[in-house]
C-alpha cells in the first residue's frame, strides 16, 4: 500500500489536470483547489511514511531495474514533495480568491505539480529528463498566460529550458554509455567502479541544470519572465520550478556520478557570484517584482555553492550540516518567496503599479499583508526563529568547521545585501503622509495564502529537527 504512494503523488495531479481541462470554466477553480488539497494530504502521508518506515521503493509493473523503471521516495523527495504541495495549494487558493483567472491556468498548475512530483520520485535518469521537460513546458505555458507582453519572455524561456535539457540529456547519454543502465542506483554503483572521468558528464549536466535554475551568469531569463508573468505564475516559477533542476543535480551529485573537484569549484564560484551579483542587482531595482526576482537569483546561488561542501574529503558532520542547510534553505525560499510574490502581485493588481514607493501606508491599511511581508522577509534574510535562520546557521557551521572562510564571507555579505534590499519596501510601508495610497481592506481569503506561507516559514524554525531528520532519511555520507 505504502509503496504506491510515490506513484500516487505523480498521477493524482495528472488526474486533476485532466479533469480541470474537461470541465467548463466556471467549475475548474473549485475542482483544482480540491485536487490540490488531496495532493497535499497524499504528500503528508508519504512524508510520515518515510519518516517512520524509511525509503519507499516501487518497481513499476513489478519489473525490476535494469529492465524496468524504479520509483523511489527518500527523505529529500518527501520534503520537496510536501513543499510543492503546500505552495501549489496556497497559490491556487490565492488565484481563486483574486480576479477571474484564464481557464487554462488550472490544468497548467496541476500539470506542473505532477511534473515536480515526478522529478522528486524519479529513480531513473531518463524519467528525470521527461519530468524536467514536463515542468519546463508547463512553466512556459504559465508565463505565456500573462498575455502579449509576456510572450517574448516565454519564448525566450522555452529556448533556455530546451537547451538546458539538451545538455542534461547528453550527460545522461555519457553515463549510459559508461554504465549500461539508466537506473540511478545501479548507475551509481557501476560508475564508482568504472574509470570514466566524472568531470565531463557532471559538468555538462551542471551547466544544463544551472541554465534551467537561473544560476549566475545564466540567470538573465528569470527577471524578464517574472516581469510579464501573471499573478499565479511568479510564485510557482521562483519557488518551485527553478528548484527542480537543483534536485536532479543533487541526485547526480549524491547518488549517480558523485562529486567532482573541478565542478565543485565551478559551482562555488558561480554560486558566490550569484549571491553577490543578484544581491547588488536587487538593491538597484525600482520595482517590487524585480527586487524579488533578483532575490531569487541570489538565493539560488546559495543552493548551488553548498555542493562544494558535500565532498568525500569533508567530515560526515560537515556533509550532514551542508545537506541540512541545502534542504532548509530550499524550504525557506520556497515558502517565503512564494509569499512575497503573492503579496507583490496583489499590490500590483490593486494599485496598477509595483514601484517600491507604492507601499506607503500599507502597515496601517493592510496590516495582515504587512505582517506576512515582514515574516517572509525575516525568513529570506535568515533572522531567528525562521527556517531561513536554521539554514543560514547550518551553512555557517558547515563552512566554519573546515575553515572555508570565503564561504563565511559570502554568506555574511549576502545577508547584509538581502537585508538592505528586502527592507526597503517594508520600511516604506510604515511611511505616513501625503504620498500614502488608499488601501481598502482585503477579504480574508485574499490574505490567507501569503500569510499562511509566511507564518509557516517563520514558525518552521521551531521544529527544524524533525524536518532535517526526515530529509536525511536514506542519505549516506561519502
Amino acid at each position, binding site marked *: 500500500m505504502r509503496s504506491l504512494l510515490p506513484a500516487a503523488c505523480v498521477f493524482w495531479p495528472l488526474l486533476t489536470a485532466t479533469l480541470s481541462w474537461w470541465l467548463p470554466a466556471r467549475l475548474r477553480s473549485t475542482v483544482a483547489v480540491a485536487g490540490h488539497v488531496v495532493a497535499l494530504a497524499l504528500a503528508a502521508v508519504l512524508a510520515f511514511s518515510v519518516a517512520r518506515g524509511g525509503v519507499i521503493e516501487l518497481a513499476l509493473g513489478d519489473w525490476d531495474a535494469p529492465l524496468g523503471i524504479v520509483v523511489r521516495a527518500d527523505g529529500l523527495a518527501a520534503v520537496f514533495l510536501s513543499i510543492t504541495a503546500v505552495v501549489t495549494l496556497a497559490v491556487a487558493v490565492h488565484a481563486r480568491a483574486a480576479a477571474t483567472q484564464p481557464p487554462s491556468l488550472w490544468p497548467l498548475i496541476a500539470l506542473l505539480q505532477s511534473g515536480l512530483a515526478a522529478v522528486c520520485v524519479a529513480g531513473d535518469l531518463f524519467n528525470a529528463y521527461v519530468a524536467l521537460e514536463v515542468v519546463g513546458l508547463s512553466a512556459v505555458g504559465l508565463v505565456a498566460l500573462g498575455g502579449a507582453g509576456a510572450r517574448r519572455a516565454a519564448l525566450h524561456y522555452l529556448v533556455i529550458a530546451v537547451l538546458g535539457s539538451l545538455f542534461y540529456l547528453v550527460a545522461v547519454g555519457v553515463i549510459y554509455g559508461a554504465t549500461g543502465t539508466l537506473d540511478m542506483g545501479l548507475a551509481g554503483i557501476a560508475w564508482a567502479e568504472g574509470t570514466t572521468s566524472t568531470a565531463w558528464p557532471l559538468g555538462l549536466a551542471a551547466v544544463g541544470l544551472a541554465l534551467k535554475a537561473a544560476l549566475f551568469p545564466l540567470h538573465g531569463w528569470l527577471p524578464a519572465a517574472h516581469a510579464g508573468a501573471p499573478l499565479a505564475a511568479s510564485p510557482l516559477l521562483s519557488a518551485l520550478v527553478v528548484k527542480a533542476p537543483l534536485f536532479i543535480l543533487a541526485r547526480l551529485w549524491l547518488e549517480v556520478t558523485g562529486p567532482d573537484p573541478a565542478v565543485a569549484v565551478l559551482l562555488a564560484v558561480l554560486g558566490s557570484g550569484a549571491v553577490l551579483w543578484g544581491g547588488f542587482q536587487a538593491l538597484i531595482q525600482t520595482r517590487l517584482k524585480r527586487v524579488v526576482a533578483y532575490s531569487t537569483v541570489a538565493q539560488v546561488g546559495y543552493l548551488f555553492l553548498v555542493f562544494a561542501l558535500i565532498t568525500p574529503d569533508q567530515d560526515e558532520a560537515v556533509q*550532514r550540516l551542508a545537506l*541540512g542547510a541545502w534542504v532548509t534553505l530550499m524550504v525557506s525560499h520556497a515558502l517565503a518567496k512564494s509569499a512575497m510574490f503573492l503579496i507583490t502581485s496583489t499590490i500590483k493588481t490593486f494599485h496598477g503599479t509595483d514601484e517600491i514607493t507604492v507601499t506607503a501606508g500599507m*502597515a*496601517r491599511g493592510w*496590516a495582515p499583508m504587512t505582517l506576512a511581508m515582514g515574516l517572509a522577509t*525575516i525568513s529570506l*534574510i535568515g*533572522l*531567528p*526563529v525562521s527556517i531561513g*535562520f*536554521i539554514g543560514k*546557521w*547550518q551553512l*555557517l*557551521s558547515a563552512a*566554519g*568547521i573546515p575553515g572555508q572562510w570565503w564561504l*563565511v564571507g559570502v554568506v*555574511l555579505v549576502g*545577508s*547584509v545585501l538581502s*537585508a*538592505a534590499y528586502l*527592507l526597503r519596501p517594508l*520600511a*516604506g510601508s*510604515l*511611511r*505616513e*503622509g501625503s504620498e500614502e495610497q488608499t488601501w481598502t481592506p482585503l477579504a480574508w481569503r485574499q490574505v490567507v495564502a501569503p500569510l499562511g506561507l509566511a507564518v509557516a516559514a517563520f514558525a518552521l*524554525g*521551531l521544529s*527544524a*529537527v524533525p524536518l*532535517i*531528520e526526515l530529509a536525511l532519511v536514506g542519505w549516506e555520507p561519502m
Partner: protein
Amino acid sequence: MNLIAALPVIVLLVSALAAVWIMLLPEEATRIRNGVGVGAAALKLVLLLALIPWVLEGDYPAMGWEMLPGIRLELRVDSLSILFALLSGILWLATTIYAIGYLRESKNRRRFFAFFSLCVTATVGIAFAGNLVTFVVFYEMLTLVTYPLVSHYGTPESLKAARAYLFYALTGGLSVLTGTVLLQSLAGSTAFEAGGTEAVQHYAAEHPGMSLVILSLLVAGFGVKAALVPLHGWLPLAMVAPAPVSALLHAVAVVKAGAFGLVRTVTDLFGVEVVHGLGALDPLLVWASVTILYGSVRALSQQDLKRRLAFSTVSQVSYITLGLAMFAPLATVGGVVHLFHQGITKIILFFCAGLFAERLGAKTISSLTGLGSRMPWTSAAFTVGAFGMIGLPPLAGFISKWTLAQGALQADRDWVVLVLVLSALLNCLYFLPIVFRLWWPPRGWEPTGELQPLALRTMLLPTVAVAVLSVAAGAFAGLPLSPLGWAELITARSHP
C-alpha cells in the same frame, strides 16, 4: 511538569500574548488596550519577584528544547538574569503608564503597544538566555521589534533614522551570529556557566588565535548596541522616536542588551581570566575609557536635550564595560550594579524630557529656563536624575561609581580612577547648568509659552516613582537584597 521550571517560559508568554491580544483589538479600544498593557506589565513583575527565592538558593529554573540537531534553545534564570529582568520589568511597567499618557493623541497606538510588549518579551528572553545561541535569537528579535517603535511617527526623518538603526543593529547582530556559530561548532558548547564555560575555556587554551577572533566578533557585535565608540552612531539619530521609546531603548532594552551581552561573554562564557590570558582585557578597558570620555565631551556641545542625553548614555553605559574589563571582583560588582542603576537613573531624565516637550514644546536646553517654578515635580525629578548621573551621594549613581573606583584601585589600574573623576566633572559641566537654569532663571526673565494641560498623573507618576527608587537604591545599598547586594552575589558566584 515542574511549575517552577516553566516559569521562565510563562514570564515570556505573558508579554507575548499581551502583544497578540493588543494587535487583535481594534484601534479605538483604548481602555481595554491600556488595561491589557498595564495588567501584563504588573503580572510580569509579580512573577519575576516570585522567582527570587529560588535564584537565591542557587536553584535556577531552566527549560529548553532542541532547535537544531545537538543545539538547544535554553532558558535559565540565574542571578544575573534576575537583575536584568527585574530592571526590565520595573521600567516596563513605568514606561507603559508613561506612554499611555504621552501617546494619547497619537495614531497607530495599537501597533505601538503591541510591539512595545514584544520588545520586553525579547529583553526578558535575553535576560533568561541560558546559552549564546538563545541569546542571539532574542537579540535579533529585539532589533526587529524595536524598528517599528523607532519609526513610529512615519516621517521621512524617522524612517531615515530607523533605517540607520536597523543597519547598525543587523550588522552587529551578524557579527555576534558568526562568533556564536563558530564557537558552537568549534568548541561544542556556548552554555553560560558562572565563571566561564568549561568547553569554551578548553578551546581557548588550545586555539588562542581563533578564540581571540571569535571574542572580537562577539565584542564588536555587542558593542554596536552597547554604543561603544565608533559604533554608537545610531543612538543620537534614534532620538527622533517618541520619548517613551527613547526612554526604553536607552534605559532598558537595546543599549543594556548590548552591555548585558558583553557581561555574559566576558564573565560567563570565556571567564575573566581567559579573556585576560588572550590579551583582550586591557584593550577593552581602554576602549571603554575612550567611549566614556568621548560621550561626555560630545554631550557638552549638544543643544537639543534628548541628544545631550543620548551622548550621556553613550558615556554612561561604558561604565559597565569598564567594570568588566578590570581584573578585580569589586570592579565587576561596580559594572554589574551600574547596569541597574544607570537604567533607573537615565529613564527619569528621558521621562522629564518628554514632559518638557509635551507641555511646552521645550526641546532645547535654553528653552528649559525657569521651568522649576512652572513644572516643579518634573524639574525636581530631573534634578534627582542629573545628580544621579553625576554620582552624588546618596543616589544610586554614586554607589556604582564609588564601587568602580575601589575596583580600579584593587586591580592596580589607578589611571581608571582619573577617568572616573574626569567623567564626573564633565557630567557636572553638562548637567549642572540645566539644573541651575531650571531653578534659578536669570533676572528679568519672563515666562513664555502656554503650558499645555495634559494627563498629568499618567506621565508624572512613573517619573516621580522611579526617581524615588533611584534614591532608595542608593540610600539602602547596604541591604542584602539591594541592587548592590545582588551584584555582590552575582560576582561571588562567578569567582568561587
